[in-house]
């Protein structure tokens, strides 16, 4: 490689490396504001002030969804399996919303309860057919059964 080309290439690599480090450091410094949502643990630690408009994210706790009989009001617990947060919402939920499913909720904390203005469903990275899911559930039930029988006897 000719010397002037080597010099140019070095300059380019130097610029690219320098910029990458600069961008990397700024992103690292900004990381908490780049996060889309707070986790229930962060809320429990008091990282968000009351009444401040924020988003929280977590899983809808199994068996925690309580729907009102005469309105769209719904109450459920969002959890990250360390801390729970009660969420109250009055509106239409996305189709994917169900227990054990991830959600991202917009709203504000008021007296320890999260009053939601919008609920988004977060879907995970797993795809499988209805048949495979049924087969997996059946296999799991079959595994659970002998253990249960042993306990019973």
């Amino acid at each position, binding site marked *: 490689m000719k010397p002037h*080309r080597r010099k*140019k*290439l070095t300059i*380019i690599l130097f*610029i*690219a490396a320098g*910029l*990458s480090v600069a*961008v990397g450091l700024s*992103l690292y410094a900004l*990381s908490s504001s*780049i*996060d*889309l*949502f707070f*986790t229930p643990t962060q809320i429990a630690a008091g990282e968000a002030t009351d009444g401040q408009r924020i988003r929280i*994210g977590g899983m809808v706790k199994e068996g925690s969804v309580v729907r009102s009989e005469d309105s769209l009001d719904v109450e459920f617990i969002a959890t990250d399996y360390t801390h729970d947060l009660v969420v109250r919402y009055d509106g239409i*939920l*996305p*189709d*994917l*919303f169900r227990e054990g*499913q991830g959600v*991202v909720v917009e709203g504000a904390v008021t007296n320890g309860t999260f009053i939601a203005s*919008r*609920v*988004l*469903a*977060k*879907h*995970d*990275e*797993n*795809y*499988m*057919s*209805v*048949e*495979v*899911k049924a*087969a*997996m559930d059946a*296999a799991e039930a079959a595994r659970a059964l002998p253990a249960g029988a042993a306990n019973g006897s």
Partner: protein
Amino acid sequence: MWLWFSKLGSPKWFYELSGKWLPWLVAFMVVTMTIGLIWALLFVPEDYQQSFTNRIFYVHVPVASISLAVFPLMAVAGAITLVWKMKLADMVAKCAAPIGVWFTGVALATGAIWGEPMWGTWWVWDARLTSMLLQFFLLIGVVALRSAIESPDAAARACALLSIVGAINVPIIKYSVEWWNTLHQPPTPLSMDAESANGPEIWVPLLIMIAAVYCFFVISLILSTRNEILQRERRSQWVMDIVAAERV
């Protein structure tokens, strides 16, 4: 190695070689695209959560993953332009930018169309979506910069530099879903086991679609670059010979 490198840099050599490859690439694309689309859109089994909505996955993922290849390609071509002043590298970089705009735009659009029924929103400012939107604007910026500078050499240098800088965004897009919490899901791990999530019935059609869309990208790039070669080399003897042969 250096001989091969300088030969590759010759527009004439590229024009002739790509002319030979094109029919094969088109044939491969037609076959994979037909099989992939029919399989993905008609025969992929119903998803246990998303029902049939996740079939857009087979368009969204190939297009989005290939749109991430555009900036690295332009950055490498840009570095070659800056260091070795290879004409062909700049032509490829120039032609890749508008194609990249389209790919990024389609990835954003299909993502929004998928997000609306599943997430309950077309758009959310999470790290993945925002960094992808940034790439869209950066690519438009490269295209605009190219046409804003009159001197082709100066435009080539400016675009090369912008491409190298813009390529820093690519790992950010790629790892955004792991570094920060986002609404967008992390990448799907493939499984060899047919009896588990993400088994072959999910990813085989995806791989076919990725091959097809990659082929489509390469074909678009080659066609566009060939056009650019004829345009820029119009005063050279070999282009005049082609034109003369076409006229007969």
